């Protein structure tokens, strides 16, 4: 065991390098840039023997990677916000060609107004582009999920690329202690990549991605959706394997904290979870029976586990670091509600939105969510969206 102090971005670069990708492509963008820089150092110093392509844009990043994957390679990149938006065209194609890879999204607010700061609007906006998405809480989890990510994405029942999403600045630039596995340990954990459903090879010629009729395309989509469902089991399986190898478990698609005897439940995503946990502890000291669900996987969405975790509770609130236009609520709030369909009337529930464009989600904010939950818990139905913001 080797604990090192490092930023989230350095952690991501080291995690990726430990997985020995054949090819890395990268283009710098705030707040991801130091991932690209650190990977460049590893390549230029000779510490990492991957092919490394510094392209002219994120669109080409994903395209180069797709080409390498179509030649059977393991690949890695990281991006943020506008870069992800520019990448959308090959990004969608990557998942629908069912090509495995791990891509970190250093989450960032979307423009406009002009911003380069934190938020989850970027990754949330592409949650229906066919990728798996996991949101992590701290630098250790960045390390662990990038490594686990390769095992999940390359699993023969899955073959869907995965985003490891971590908060821009709040994690990307935060220095924390990280237990860095040795190369030997990662080599022992992670088998070599192998898939052959979409391969460009003169010895075995095929048309990869031919023009496709609607009937056949529908079969592909159905297979993709079914693989997403299977991935829920694979996520749990890999979590257990990882725990055995490295001694750390994250509970699979969601992580529950003090929910067992709770009346009211706070649901968090990503880096805000640490604050939420403290707020829960403080409220518990005052006798409030509150628990916490950390939503880790957003795709596949853990419908059954959410429903089970909230069963018998009186109230819940979801704190989103992004918005769902047209719902006057956060996107994960609408999805948690959908997961409970039929049981919604029994619960008191509301959406809380904060942390947009780098704004802070403070302990006071989290406490205000718990206080509102406590005050509405006996009034079933939807309550007004709570905006976690300064009054102007």
């Amino acid at each position, binding site marked *: 065991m080797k604990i090192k102090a490092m930023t989230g971005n350095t952690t991501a670069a080291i995690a990726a390098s430990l997985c020995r990708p054949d090819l890395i492509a990268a283009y710098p963008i705030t707040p991801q840039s130091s991932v690209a820089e650190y990977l460049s150092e590893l390549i230029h110093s000779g510490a990492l023997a991957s092919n490394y392509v510094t*392209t002219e*844009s994120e*669109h080409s990043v994903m395209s180069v990677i*797709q080409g390498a994957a179509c030649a059977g390679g393991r690949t890695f990149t990281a991006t943020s916000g506008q870069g992800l938006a520019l990448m959308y065209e090959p990004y969608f*194609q990557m998942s629908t060609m069912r090509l495995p890879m791990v891509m970190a999204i250093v989450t960032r607010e979307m423009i406009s107004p002009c911003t380069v700061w934190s938020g989850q609007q970027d990754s949330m906006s592409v949650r229906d582009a066919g990728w798996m998405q996991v949101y992590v809480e701290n630098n250790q989890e960045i390390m662990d999920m990038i490594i686990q990510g390769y095992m999940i994405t390359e699993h023969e029942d899955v073959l869907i690329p995965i985003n490891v999403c971590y908060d821009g600045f709040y994690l990307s630039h935060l220095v924390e202690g990280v237990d860095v596995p040795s190369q030997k340990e990662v080599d022992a954990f992670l088998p070599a990549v192998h898939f052959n459903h979409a391969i460009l090879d003169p010895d075995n010629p095929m048309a990869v991605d031919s*023009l496709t009729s609607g009937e056949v395309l529908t079969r592909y989509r159905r297979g993709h959706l079914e693989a997403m469902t299977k991935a829920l089991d694979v996520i749990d399986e890999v979590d257990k394997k990882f725990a055995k190898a490295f001694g750390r478990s994250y509970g699979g698609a969601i992580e529950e904290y003090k929910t067992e005897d709770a009346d009211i439940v706070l649901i968090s995503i990503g880096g805000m979870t640490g604050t939420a946990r403290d707020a829960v502890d403080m409220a518990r000291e005052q006798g409030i029976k509150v628990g916490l669900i950390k939503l880790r996987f957003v795709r596949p969405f853990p419908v059954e586990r959410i429903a089970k975790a909230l069963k018998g509770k009186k109230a819940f609130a979801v704190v989103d670091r992004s918005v769902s236009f047209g719902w006057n609520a956060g996107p994960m709030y609408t999805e948690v509600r959908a997961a409970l369909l039929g049981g919604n009337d029994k619960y008191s529930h509301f959406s809380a939105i904060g942390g947009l464009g780098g704004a802070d989600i403070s302990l006071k904010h989290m406490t205000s969510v718990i206080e509102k939950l406590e005050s509405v818990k006996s009034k079933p139905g939807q309550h007004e969206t709570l905006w976690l913001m300064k009054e102007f």
Partner: protein
Amino acid sequence: MNYIEKLRTSEDMVTPGMSACQGCCGELVLRRILQIAGKNTIVCVPPGCMSGAGVVGWDYQTGMKIPVHIPLLTNTASFLSGVSQMYQRKGRGDVNMIAVAGDGATADGGFQSLSGAAERNEKMLYVCYDNEGYMNTGFQRSSTTTKGSRTSTTPIGEAINGKQQPSKYVSLIMSMHALQYCATASPSHMQDMVAKIERGLSESKKGFAFIHVLAPCPTGWSFEPDQSIQIAKKAVASNMFPLWEKYNGNYYITVENKKPIPVKEFLQSMGKFKSLTDADIAQIQQEADTKYETLKKLASE
């Protein structure tokens, strides 16, 4: 072996059932390139006439005897960069990496990715078959469309008459990258074209090779399908499309044009230029002359 013998004896890589228009030069160019390249090849054909004509396959059937992929309109050169890098990594640098793309995928939406791959000197042969427009989707203008052309987005009208801007000279722009090889070719000059494909393939093992091929289009340009080669010949003879190459840092004019024919002879042999005025023709003539003078200067350095 001379070029006729080479083409006569080499295998066609396209499967039966391809549905290009009669007289299509894009098809001719695609088949000739892949004949020369042979089976140890991976080819990318982005959206455009050739993919639309079926070479990228349909449902579970392929349209080629070699591995083929339809990348996006916008990413052919970067996608192929990734394939190429992986093959270098595997010690299989012998495999030909070829893109066959139209002018839209080359000079418009795909230009950024193309320029990036050329700047990185990625190992591939990128061939643009230039039919001067988005012919597959109904002949809309592209940046390589000649000034004055009638297209479906630059129609002939009382207020605006055809395309108003001169064409983007994509091959000369590409040649300004520090690439391995750059050339223009025409199906009317097959010996020259075969030599350039061969050189392009061998140079593509060392870096980025780009060939810009004129591909007259009977359907879009409005001429009889049996006139395609004649039209291409006139484009070269009038200096509308001079034949040249650049390698080892030097430019060479490969088909000298000592007595050029007036551009009028080229322009008047098809329907898309039928509303040109004398002033328009004079301006196009001047542009062709300037283009050739520029190339001559580059070639004499």
